[in-house]
């Protein structure tokens, strides 16, 4: 492909691609990381073989796309142009689906079934999970093979870049982004336009622009999905930003835990260079820009902007004091502007559709949409993109389909290790940067982990503190030592060794950490502890005073017990117990020898739900086992 040397050539190419592609059915198969984990590659092969076998190569196209967001139902198949949506596809479904396309019939057994009405839904856009979303940043994923730049171009790709370079001055581009009030999607929510301006105005050359794809928040993966599924949108945003700021070199920092994102990104860069969107004299505009990919080597703290910039220089990714902003002195002491993947991917939309359009979506202080990874104890796990201001309840219940197994909602955790939990009484809070902060949590990069009645809130706090303890770089004392102290106390509390006064010590340590830590990792590290304390203090007190875990989760405070009146002596738990702690026989009630029990939880898991004889006990005495030879009370079937 020869380089494109002008906007006219780009538009001509777009027309050419359209003309080259006859209108015929296309099967798109989602194959991002979660799709692959659920066997999408075998599905793709099956479709390819089936099409070859039937000689339909000229009649039906196959497109391998990135993640479509409904991870629970991956691999997902979309049959264009009608957008018939098949879920949880298997290789053996290929023949039937292809026959269906030939006969213009829908394979109803593979459609989404509404759990409430039992109704089958044909079109993706009508499935409740998608219906309530507003997908603008993620909208192209279903149309694009990330390894084919022409798929992006045919969807209008790089038209924003062309507009910025030829119809707007760099100041105008910057003003547009500022006008749009685009706030950083990585967690801080700092206005991108202001950051860009500071970098642009800072003295010194060269200037750098950076994409932060070091998505370290456990339970958040929207950046991965964007980078895997539509890398060109990120690149286009970055090049536009570079033009506005006056940078000619950029870095993209991607976690090495995301191998597919790295692969697809490298692929995209190569193609963008070939087509003339990267390199010298982009689209004949005279503007030059190059980009390098750096893989992160596994350090959560490296996602912090100043730490990431050190990592780009090949150094240990430790943060530094930021009284001089990285916008002034970043990579190699030069002005550097860093935004995360989602922020960059939003830029082309703003340039194309204008700041007014962007500002028409969202709330007063938070404009546009936000992608959340809705995970945990929720029915529809996946990536959801919603306008800012939608309530938590709408996201969790209307889109997420409510709580797994009909359990009771307890809290939702947002903001990852820097955020906090939000209990039921605040479910009607609109989700935006400012509202969640008021509740003692934060929006963060968009992780939304739903927790139910079986989740222990003290354990949640312990989990995050453990995580941060391992990830703290250790440079400043409040973070390093504060986290260690919190870890000791919380471990004690969870193990039933908590004592009066522990809660007060936790609060004091948290206060010092927030006031005196060097970077945001430390200043926010106590948030998960403080917010669980704020809303679930009773759970802490139960652990400390009564040695009881209300959620019956903490191993040291929980015992397993077989209810004699319910046990049907099916032998399943007895055979599965790895500790040999279960006694009993055919026809005889089983019982657990507590001193042998390793509390692995297998008996609880394998006991057939129709018996539900195994229960967890916490904070109460374990009843004596039944006398030897106790026979089962047969349960009447039906």
């Amino acid at each position, binding site marked *: 492909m020869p380089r494109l040397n002008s906007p006219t050539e780009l538009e001509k190419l777009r027309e050419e691609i359209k003309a080259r592609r006859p209108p015929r059915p296309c099967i798109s198969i989602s194959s991002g*990381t*979660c799709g*692959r*984990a*659920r066997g999408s590659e075998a599905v793709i092969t099956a479709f390819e073989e089936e099409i070859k076998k039937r000689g339909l190569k000229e009649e039906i196209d196959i497109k391998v796309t990135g993640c479509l967001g409904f*991870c629970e139902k*991956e691999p997902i198949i979309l049959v264009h142009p009608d957008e018939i949506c098949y879920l949880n596809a298997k290789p053996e479904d290929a023949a039937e689906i292809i026959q269906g396309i030939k006969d213009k019939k829908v394979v109803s057994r593979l459609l989404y079934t509404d759990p409430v009405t039992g109704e089958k839904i044909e079109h993706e856009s009508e499935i409740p999970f998608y219906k309530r979303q507003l997908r603008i940043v993620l909208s192209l994923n279903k149309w694009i093979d990330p390894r084919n730049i022409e798929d992006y171009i045919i969807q209008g790709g790089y038209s924003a870049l062309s507009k910025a370079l030829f119809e707007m001055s760099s100041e105008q581009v910057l003003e547009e982004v500022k006008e749009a009030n685009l706030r950083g999607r990585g967690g801080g929510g700092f206005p991108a336009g202001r950051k860009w301006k500071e970098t642009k105005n800072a003295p010194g050359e060269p200037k750098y622009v950076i994409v932060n794809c070091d*998505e*370290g*928040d*456990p*339970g958040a*993966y929207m950046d*991965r*999905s964007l980078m895997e599924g539509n890398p060109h949108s990120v690149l286009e945003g970055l090049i536009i930003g570079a033009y506005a700021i006056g940078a000619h070199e950029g870095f993209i920092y991607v976690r*090495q*835990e*995301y191998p597919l994102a790295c692969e697809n990104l490298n692929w995209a860069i190569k193609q963008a260079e070939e087509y003339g969107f990267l390199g010298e004299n982009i689209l004949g505009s005279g503007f030059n820009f190059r980009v390098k990919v*750096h*893989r*992160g*080597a596994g*350090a*959560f703290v490296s996602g912090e902007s100043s730490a990431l910039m050190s*990592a*780009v*220089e*090949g*150094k*240990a*990714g*430790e943060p530094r004091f930021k009284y001089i902003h990285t916008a002034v002195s970043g990579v190699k002491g030069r002005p550097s502007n860093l935004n995360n993947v989602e922020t960059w991917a939003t830029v082309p939309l703003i340039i194309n559709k204008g700041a007014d359009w962007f500002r028409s979506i969202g709330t007063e202080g938070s404009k546009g949409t936000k992608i959340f*990874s809705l*995970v*945990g*104890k929720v029915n529809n*796990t*996946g990536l959801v993109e919603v306008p800012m201001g939608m309530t938590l309840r709408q996201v969790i219940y209307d889109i997420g389909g409510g709580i797994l197994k009909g359990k009771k909602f307890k809290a939702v*955790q947002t903001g*990852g290790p820097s955020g906090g939990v939000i209990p039921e009484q605040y479910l009607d809070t609109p989700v935006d940067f400012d509202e969640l902060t008021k509740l003692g949590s934060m929006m963060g990069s968009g*992780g939304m*982990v*739903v*927790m*139910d009645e079986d*989740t222990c809130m003290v354990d*949640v706090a312990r*989990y*995050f503190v453990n*995580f941060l303890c391992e*990830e703290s*770089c250790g440079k400043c004392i409040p973070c390093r030592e504060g986290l260690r102290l919190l870890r000791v106390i919380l471990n004690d509390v969870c193990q039933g060794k908590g004592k009066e006064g522990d809660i007060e010590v936790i609060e004091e340590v948290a206060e010092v950490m927030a006031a005196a830590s060097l970077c945001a990792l430390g200043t926010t590290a106590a948030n998960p502890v403080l917010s669980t304390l704020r809303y679930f203090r009773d759970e802490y007190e139960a652990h400390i005073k009564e040695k009881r875990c209300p959620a019956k989760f903490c191993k040291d405070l929980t015992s397993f017990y077989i209810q004699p009146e319910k046990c049907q002596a099916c032998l399943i738990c007895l055979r*599965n117990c*790895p500790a040999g702690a279960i006694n009993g026989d055919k026809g005889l009630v089983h019982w657990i020898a507590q001193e042998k029990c*390793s509390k*692995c*939880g*297998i008996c609880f*898991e*394998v006991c057939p739900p129709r018996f539900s004889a195994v229960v967890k006990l916490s904070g109460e005495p374990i009843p004596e086992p039944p006398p030897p030879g106790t026979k089962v009370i047969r349960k009447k079937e039906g």
Partner: protein
Amino acid sequence: MTGVSGLVAKVVDSYQRDKDMLIQILLDLQSGFGWLPKQVLDEVSKHLGVPITRVYQIATFYKAFSLAPKGKHLIRVCMGTACQVRGSALIRDRMEQLLGIKVGEITSDMKFSLETVNCLGCCAMGPMAEIDGIAHGPLTISKVEEILKKYE
């Protein structure tokens, strides 16, 4: 062993001997060797012209690097928040129990390395574990044994 020296030189050259690329060079070597033997680190220091102390600083700061060899099969139990609330701690405990090792250790027959990882981004499959790069999930405590048997 000139082999190691040659290999390291090749990787270092592929990054134009750019000192900024130290992390990238070590990542390539880590994936090639499966771990970073002392000799490899010495060679990196020599070929790239950075002090050995800095090479060690990087190799120990980042989690992706290992200064000890790994087992034949690498098990990574995901401890992301989504997996955590779905009971990944119990899966980890069961793995430890079955393999007779703790997280971070290798079985004495060098067959399995057991590690935890913060989030693999497969939250819908939680609780999950990755063995040799293949995702397994959603796991149950009783399924763990069966899965490990496949790798015996």
